[in-house]
Every structure is written in structure tokens, then in C-alpha cells.
């Protein structure tokens, strides 16, 4: 069953169109990857889905409800949570305050304490550092706060934008492992990544984007052995 359905979406910045008739479906409970090089419009897609950018045309359905054009806070209220590129933590607020901000909506606030415990269970490091300013953490710890903050909202669908960016190989592996673990709790995941190998290996399905369009789709396993993918993205 499709949880999110994007139908012929067009978006751009002023006169520059970025997404061209993009159609994507996200199924309930799956890990979906969207892969592609820099500048093909992956982040623009997420910003449009989160309501930070307007779509020029096209429809987005979430559980059969049209959501394009809704303001970001309404979209968050529906359970569509984005963990933005580059973490975007509130650098001068503490780790705990950052996590609390994740549970800002009334629905999430009601279950704040319970979720905080869950987040500390996944990332015990954050409990140790809860009073430290988020801006003073290491890159890996900041990514934990970013993911933890996203989980505090109680997402139905979690959209991650380049979560492995700027991390060491060990921390990358750890990040993908955590994403997989979150998916196992029933959260639908939409993963945007340049680390094609790792993201495909944890994905049920994936779309390949080039120049604002979907050029290929398939299961993670299929795409991993696809000659085009191997040549263009895996360098094999």
C-alpha cells in the first residue's frame, strides 16, 4: 500500500526548474532510497515534501490526503518528519533542548518522556551529553542528535537527507545500521544518499534521479547489480 504518492511534481527556484514531472511512490513500512549525484534535485524534493518550498505543479498524497501547499508545521503534524541535510541543529541550545524541540507538536509533546527514553536507548551518548550545547558536539554526535530529534516527533515517515555526509567510514556504517533499526520499528523511511552502496544495501526499493527526473527504479538488490549503477555510482 502506498503511504506517500508523488504525482508529476514540478518545482524550481524562480525561473530555474529543478524537478521535472517527478513521480514517486513510497510504500508503507519500507526503506526507500533516492540516489543520484549532487545537484539532481534530491534535497529540493525533500524541501517541497516538507512544505519549505512551494511546488509549481503536481500532487502529493499522504494516505490519500493531498498535502502539497500545506505549511511545514501541518506536514510535521501528519507525521512526515524530515532530518535535514547538514543536521541543522540549534547550535546554541543544549542536546536536551534540541530533542525537546523535536517533540514540539502537541501530539508529540504528550509522549515526550517516553520517546526521550527510547532515543537515549538508541544513543546512550546523548544522555551523557544532554546538557552540552549541540554546536560543541562532534560530527557523529551531532548526527545522533539530528536523528534523535527526528524520532522525538514520532514519525510515520522519516525522510533523511544525506545522514552519512561528513562522517568517518565507521560512523557511516553505524548510521546506516541505526536507520535500518528505526525501519524495523515500523517507521517508513525515505533515504536520500550519495553513498549509493550502503543505502541500496539497506533499501527495499530505490529510485535513481538524474537532472530532476527519475531515470530508474527497482529493488535495492536489483540496482546494486545493475551495470549502469555500478559504472556511474559505484565506480566498478
Amino acid at each position: 500500500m502506498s503511504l506517500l504518492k508523488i504525482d508529476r511534481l514540478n518545482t524550481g527556484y524562480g525561473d530555474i526548474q529543478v524537478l521535472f514531472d517527478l513521480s514517486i511512490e513510497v510504500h508503507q513500512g519500507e526503506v526507500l532510497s533516492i540516489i543520484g549525484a549532487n545537484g539532481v534535485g534530491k534535497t529540493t524534493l525533500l524541501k517541497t515534501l516538507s512544505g519549505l518550498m512551494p511546488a509549481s505543479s503536481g500532487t502529493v498524497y499522504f494516505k490519500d490526503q493531498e498535502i502539497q501547499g500545506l505549511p511545514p508545521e501541518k506536514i510535521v503534524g501528519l507525521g512526515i518528519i524530515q532530518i535535514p541535510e547538514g543536521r541543522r541543529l540549534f547550535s546554541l541550545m543544549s542536546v536536551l533542548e534540541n530533542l525537546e524541540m523535536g517533540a514540539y507538536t502537541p501530539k508529540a509533546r504528550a509522549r515526550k518522556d517516553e520517546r526521550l527514553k527510547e532515543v537515549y536507548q538508541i544513543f546512550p551518548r546523548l544522555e551523557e551529553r544532554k546538557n552540552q550545547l549541540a554546536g560543541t558536539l562532534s560530527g557523529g554526535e551531532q548526527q545522533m542528535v539530528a536523528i534523535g530529534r527526528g524520532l522525538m516527533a514520532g514519525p510515520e515517515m522519516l525522510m533523511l537527507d544525506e545522514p552519512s555526509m561528513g562522517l568517518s567510514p565507521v560512523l557511516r556504517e553505524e548510521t546506516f545500521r541505526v536507520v535500518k533499526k528505526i525501519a524495523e520499528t515500523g517507521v517508513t523511511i525515505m533515504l536520500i544518499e550519495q553513498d549509493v552502496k550502503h543505502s541500496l544495501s539497506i533499501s527495499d526499493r530505490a529510485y535513481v534521479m538524474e537532472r530532476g527526473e527519475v531515470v530508474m527504479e527497482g529493488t535495492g538488490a536489483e540496482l546494486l547489480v545493475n551495470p549502469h549503477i555500478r559504472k556511474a555510482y559505484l565506480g566498478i
Partner: protein
Amino acid sequence: MSGTALLYTDWLDEMEIIFESLLNGLLMGSIYGLTAVGLTLIFGVLKVINFAHGSILMVGMYAAYWCITLTGMNPYLAIPIVVPLMFYFGYFMQQFVIEPVFKVEKDVREPITVIIVTTGVWYILDNLALMIFGAKYRVVHTSVTGKLFELPGDIYLLQPKVYGFILTFISGLLLFWFLKTTLMGKAIRATSLDRDAASLMGVNQYKIYRTAFGIGTAVTGLAGCVLVPFYSVYPSVGIIFDIRAFIIVVLGGLGSIPGAILGGIIVGIIESVGAMYMPSTWTELVIYGLFLLLLFIKPTGLFGSKHDF
């Protein structure tokens, strides 16, 4: 022998006078700080310099003036009336005047058109006041006006300035507590640090802007209440405080509330101690000189970081 004794008492007198002007500078400076807190708060959240700030202070002063004159109440009892009124004045001004322009320039970090709109508001408010109340300087005679506190050592302090000092610190602490501990306060801080990230948490950023603008206006209204017992009210009174508030805010670090209060105190002390040694027009020169020097050495101001208030 008697010559040295005389010199000694001269020196003592001089010290007393310096101490008195230091205290007076501290009191008046904290009130300058209070007039600047709203400006810095609004800038911190909206990233917009509000050119109507002085006019908002003027509106607050007139509101306090009429409250006190019409009812004859204790001047500080006007605070619970003026401050909430000013909150809504700011809230709706943001919602109906600034927000529409702000939305159009959503992607611009420091939108110039919004600054132009606030300049328009400044002209409209000042001229409305001129039209309604006339150019007359109005002085309200309250139960504290002109009264002095006498401290040991022949030191006299104007009572309304002492109350202003106390109110500045109470309101500064309250504001600090509000921003640090309440959910709305945290949302305001988060929005000031990264508005898009705050939106992704489910924060309605426009509501935050209205609230922040309302709080900034309310604090400025409080400053108006504090000034009225010892400062005359007239339509262009805001301009004097406006220019000073800009300097104070940059001196203390744009967006920092403790910075605004400290910056105010520095300006107040220079004005008051400086006036003993030079004509008051020269104290302005010292203030601007210090201001330029600080911009040169530390462009972010005394408390300037990415400002978390």
C-alpha cells in the same frame, strides 16, 4: 598642614561627585538598555532592524502618560495596563503590516523591503501623534516625579530612575527565564537560530515572529512607563532613544538581551561621568568613538555570538 587637609576634602568631594554620576549613569543606562531590549529581541528572531522602534516607545510613553493623567494613578500601576496593550499592538502590527511583506521576501535573510515598511510605520506613527496630540511637550506630575533618594555621603538619586533600574532588571530576568524554560521561549530561540529547522520541528514560524514582535513591543512599552515620570512626552521623542538604542544594540551584540542592558549601562555611564569633564555634545563623540572602535576590534559586539539571547 591645613592646606593638605583642604586638598583632601576637595578630593573627597570630587570622589563623591564622581560616584554620584557613576550611579546616575548606571541607573539611566539601565533604562537606555530597557529601551533597546525590544529592538535586539526583534532583530534576533526576525533578522530585521525595526526602524519603527522609537515610535513604538513614543506610543508606549503616550499610553502611560494618558493612563496616569486621566486617572491620577500611581505611575507604576500603568504598567499592567500599558504592557499587555503594547503586546497586542506589536503582535497585530507584525501580523497585518510586516508579515505580508515578510512572506513575499521569505527567502531573503535580511529583507530590505521589511526595513522600508518599518520606516513607513515610524513616519505614520510619529505624524499621527503630532496630528492627535500636537507638538506640545507633555510632562506628567506623578507621586515620584522629582523625588530623590538620599544616600550617605550627600549622594542623591532620582527616585523614578531607581525604580526604572529595578524594573529593568526584573523584566530582564523574567524575559531570560521565559526564553530559557518555556516551550514558547525555546521555540523563539530555535527560530532565531535556524528558522527552517524550527519549521521542520512543527513550529509555525509566523506565529513566532508575531509573538516575538509582541514581546519586543511590550518591553518597549514598559520602557515608556518607566520614562514618563521623569521625561517629557512629545511626538518625536522616539528618535532620541532610537538612535541610542541602535548604538546600544550593536555595542552589546545584535540579538543579545544581556548585551543590550550592558550596552545601555556603558552609554549611560559615559554620558553621565563624561558630562563632568566635557560639554555634553562631546560625550556623544566619545560614545560614537567607542562604538566605532568596538566595531573595529569586535564587530559582533560585546556579547555577539550567533545570539542565543
